[in-house]
């Protein structure tokens, strides 16, 4: 069962003269077990949209459905929805509060009514999933950890609730390249092995080009384009991407430049590995003289 958003409108300070429209009729679907990249510049409405997906902002009736449940219906069970849709905010390490890592990570399960033993078991599992050995970390203070470790603890705090959907707002912001790659690898692993649907919000198109099955491009509160990464990041949408101030992945830029110089590169090439093999193949053909030089 998917998350369905149907024609969602929202304005901050709604109903007053200073209303600021944030979402203007957004419709989208997040499939069960899907890896979706949600991209868009600052102010596109990404963070606002996320808060509707787990009922932090209550949508109008009939606009947001999680596994068939209307989040806007009166008396909707929002705590069940928040368990199913795990939301990881930007800089999630800023929400850590407990004296020990274990206490912090088990906060979510305890709120859901798990017994102390059950909460502990789930917290340990979640810590192991994010790559922190529970035996080494659980009794330490979260504030004594490095920034990257703190972020993992915060992520574990959401995973311990056992979500079916994981929604992350700029999870790699402020991480170094290695930390960034590790975190994205972790998300891919959660998606592949646990079957968790991942919604990755970012303005780094590289991240979603490499990992997402589907990309949704949001601009000024509207869905501008949606589809497989090769499609959304294809030449057709480049002007829209540039207009929104988003950088096309370097590999795709290279393909554009080579094509301009007359290289024959078939297909939608946005992923690094595809680009490398396509360029290598084309270079071999050119070296063999099978293709017009200097065209």
């Amino acid at each position: 069962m998917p998350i369905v958003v149907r024609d969602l409108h929202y304005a901050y300070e709604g109903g007053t003269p200073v209303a600021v429209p944030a979402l203007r009729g957004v419709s989208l679907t997040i499939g069960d077990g899907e890896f979706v990249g949600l991209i868009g510049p600052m102010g596109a409405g990404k963070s606002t949209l996320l808060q509707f997906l787990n009922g932090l902002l209550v949508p109008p009736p009939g606009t947001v459905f999680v596994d068939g449940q209307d989040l806007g219906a009166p008396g909707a069970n929002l705590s069940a929805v928040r368990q199913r849709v795990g939301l990881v905010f930007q800089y999630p390490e800023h929400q850590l509060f407990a004296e020990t890592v274990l206490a912090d990570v088990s906060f979510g399960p305890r709120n859901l009514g798990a017994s102390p033993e059950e909460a502990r078991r789930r917290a340990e599992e979640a810590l192991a999933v994010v790559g922190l050995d529970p035996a080494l970390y659980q009794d330490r203070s979260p504030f004594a950890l490095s920034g990257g470790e703190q972020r993992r603890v915060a992520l574990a705090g959401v995973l311990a609730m056992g979500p079916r959907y994981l929604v992350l707002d700029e999870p790699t912001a402020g991480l170094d390249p290695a930390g960034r790659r590790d975190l994205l690898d972790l998300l891919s692993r959660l998606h592949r092995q646990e079957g968790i649907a991942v919604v990755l919000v970012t303005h780094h198109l590289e991240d979603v080009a490499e990992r997402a099955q589907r990309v949704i491009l949001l601009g000024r509160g509207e869905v501008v384009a949606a589809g497989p990464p090769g499609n959304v990041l294809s030449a057709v949408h480049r002007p829209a991407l540039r207009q929104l101030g988003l950088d096309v992945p370097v590999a795709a830029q290279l393909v554009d430049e080579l094509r301009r110089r007359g290289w024959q590169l078939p297909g939608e090439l946005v992923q690094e590995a595809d680009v490398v093999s396509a360029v290598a193949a084309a270079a071999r053909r050119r070296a063999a003289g099978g293709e017009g030089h200097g065209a």
Partner: protein
Amino acid sequence: MALRDVTLGQFVPGDSVLHRLDARVKLVCGLVLAAALFATGAWAGYGLLAAYVGLATGAARLPAGAFARGLRPVLWLVALSVTFHALLTPGTPVVDFGPLAVTVEGLDAAGRLAVRLVLLVMGVQLVMMTTSPVALTDALEWLLTPGRRLGLPAHELAMMVTIALRFVPALVEELDRIIKAQKARGAELERGGPISRARALVPILVPLFIGAFRRADALALALESRCYRGSLGRTRWRASRWAARDWTALAGSLVVMVLVGWRFR
């Protein structure tokens, strides 16, 4: 929605007469008003001060809704003290509740107290809402300057107030974000008895305080890296001068207050 009430008395930009008055004049008038309110005990004095505050309120041309919202929390205090005064002052009973009685003297005292409190808060609100925080702290520094001889760090105190005011909106925003993050982890803030409610605040207040300290650290570094060293040899960018309207307003206000304090004790 409840969070918006935190920013009470926030500056509302405008160009009314009150907005254009020098912040120092407004600050002094506010202080003298407070003194006059407590110096006078006569209804005629209250009437005169009420007219003065009413005139200033009209001249400030503030949005009525925002102004009234600021008064709301005080009304609780007023209601509470009026009740106690009316019931517990001995004298001629108006209504008798057995051991307790509403007395004429009690109603009189309660009325005076209510008028004092409401006028005082209205005065404070007028100053706060028509004066930008920067101008207000400059005025505060000016007011504290005589204390420097006694070792009072006037500039530093004023700077601290400016920074504190400046960070209120940022902290409110951060508070909102933390509440949402903990709600996303299933936190229930509005359920249970007083103890479980108080306990539910821990996951919110701890990150808020840590965030405030983090901001303070960053701000201290930013100030130092721009060679801030307190009041030593510091000049002012906005040098405010007293205009004719400032003298007029100050003189007019002082006349009213002195009259009230002296004639209607």
